């Protein structure tokens, strides 16, 4: 919320652009030097696959933030969508049996639930005109408590047989690349293209930069704004589709703090929090940075685990300092 809006980045290959990438590289080097297994396929697969949920959501968040909005509800929305998906699948087993139709039905439910939740946020924000912060803060509490209520305070678990059938969606993949990684990569690529090459991306940036100008330029401001939230909701649904096969369960504590992590990834990646400029590839880098910090802390065990949060915080700030240094040096 400093003067970043004014000086939207332009120069290529500047420190500002390279900042997050350099931070990422530094982390990789650090990890490799701490533990020889760090660069092993198994560990990289783990880290990337885990990043996928937050990553997919963060790509959607990039559009919301670029359009001048924010969404605090994604974490609890994910928990809610997962809960609904599990309940629906369990209910459908008698009629569909365990097999591809069941999985497909579950996926459809998740996507629809996500889109509907996003639409609700979008309508309240774009049509009714309430601050996104308030709408999504309220939604965060609502979904979180609905999930707890659905689970009767406990955990919603997918039927064991169904889960065994569904499990490969998280753990298997093509040519040794796990599905979540593939899906995340696809979402990131499509997102990057949508941001840079499509009218929608342009309109998001215009909306975030100056809503008046966008309106005077025949941009359907309300519709674009709503679309960003619907898109994010859909991506939350998609992330859930990847999440449920992993542990087969959802509870009130699923997805806690995902919203902050997603927003942090977006900002670390160079998107401007006040809107007007967004960078999907930067978000991907941001997500990887955050995942790697956790991974490295677990691999290193240098310090008291109580201090993990301190190290995380310091690294996050440093990653952004790198980036801003480039900027202020103009």
């Amino acid at each position: 919320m400093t003067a970043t809006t004014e000086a939207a980045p332009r120069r290529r290959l500047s420190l500002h652009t390279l900042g997050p990438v350099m931070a990422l590289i530094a982390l990789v080097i650090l990890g490799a030097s701490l533990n020889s297994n760090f660069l092993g396929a198994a560990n990289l697969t783990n880290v990337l696959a885990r990043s996928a949920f937050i990553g997919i959501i963060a790509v959607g968040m990039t559009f919301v933030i670029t359009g001048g909005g924010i969404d605090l509800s994604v974490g609890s929305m994910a928990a809610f969508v997962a809960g609904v998906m599990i309940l629906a699948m369990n209910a459908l087993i008698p009629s569909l049996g365990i097999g591809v139709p069941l999985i497909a039905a579950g996926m459809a439910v998740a996507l629809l639930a996500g889109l509907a939740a996003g639409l609700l946020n979008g309508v309240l924000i774009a049509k009714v005109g309430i601050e996104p912060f308030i709408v999504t803060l309220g939604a965060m509490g609502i979904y979180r408590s609905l999930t707890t209520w659905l689970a009767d305070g406990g955990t919603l678990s997918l039927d064991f047989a169904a889960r065994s059938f569904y499990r490969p969606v998280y753990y298997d993949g093509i040519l040794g690349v796990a599905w979540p990684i593939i899906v995340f990569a696809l979402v990131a690529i499509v997102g990057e293209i949508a941001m840079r090459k499509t009218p929608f991306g342009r309109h998001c940036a215009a909306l975030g930069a100056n809503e008046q100008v966008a309106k005077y330029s025949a941009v359907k401001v309300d519709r674009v704004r709503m679309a960003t939230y619907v898109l994010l909701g859909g991506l939350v649904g998609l992330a859930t589709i990847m999440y449920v096969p992993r542990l087969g369960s959802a509870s009130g504590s699923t997805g806690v703090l995902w919203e902050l992590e997603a927003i942090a990834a977006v900002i670390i990646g160079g998107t401007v929090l006040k809107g007007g400029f967004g960078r999907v590839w930067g978000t991907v880098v941001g997500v990887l940075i955050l995942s790697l910090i956790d991974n490295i802390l677990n691999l290193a065990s240098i310090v008291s685990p109580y201090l993990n949060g301190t190290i995380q915080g310091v690294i996050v700030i440093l990653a952004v300092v790198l980036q801003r240094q480039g900027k202020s040096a103009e």
Partner: protein
Amino acid sequence: QETMTIGVAIPSATHGFMGGLNYHAQASIERLEATYPQLDFVLATAGDAGKMVNDIEDMVATRNIDALVVLPFESEPLTAPVQFVKEQGIWVTVVDRGLSVEGIEDLYVAGDNPGFGRTAGEYFAENLGEGDNIVVLRGIPTTLDNERVDAFTAVIEGSGINVLDMQHGNWNRDDAFNVMQDFLSKYDDIDAVWAADDDMAIGVLEAISQADRNEEMWVVGGAGMKEIIARIRDGDPMLPVNVTYPPAQIATAIELTALGLVSDTPVSGRFIIGSQLVTPENAESFYFPDSPF
């Protein structure tokens, strides 16, 4: 006949164990309301100590409670407010986490945290030997987590078992999954895992099976989640035993408190529900299919 009100203040259902606790609290309240029409209940759940104090204040100021059943979110901050409730002449039942000043409560019902760690530790000490490696997943950093872990380490000390690593899995499946994945990347030889909680055990098991190292190690969780109990009963080699820490203790506390209010039965005192070792042989008696936990 005069109605009497019992206030129940417990932490909200943020993880499996607390979910079970919430379930048992609500179930016993429903049951008691049906049995004793003269009893009214106020149930409040809190996400932090401050909110719990607020809830208790509200119960006293607006609901005129005659008895309070509280599972302190944390011991220290709840001590003074509960003491204040007691000074108003209200019956106080404390559950699970003791207050930091002795003698405030009329009735104390609790699980045994050091016992929980000790029982698990004893199993490890008996079944592993010199040079065997284990990793530990701790809960959310709290006093009770410290008590469990301290008791555990005290028991295995001198047994020659190496504790390779301890990290916080925050009693959360996803966190435990991530931590265990990283432990597996980091250590080539792990013989057993103490996951300290069944939610974490679920995440740990999944990480192990993904790494295809099922044969190599076994896992001990805790608190007796029904899925885990079922797997022990069915003889899962990865889950040899479990240690109980029953969420149903809240029901015991509420029921005893109610009994004390409606009858002359003496109920004050201390009820410590010991942590028991669940084995394939006795698992059936710890299996509650209706509980959400």
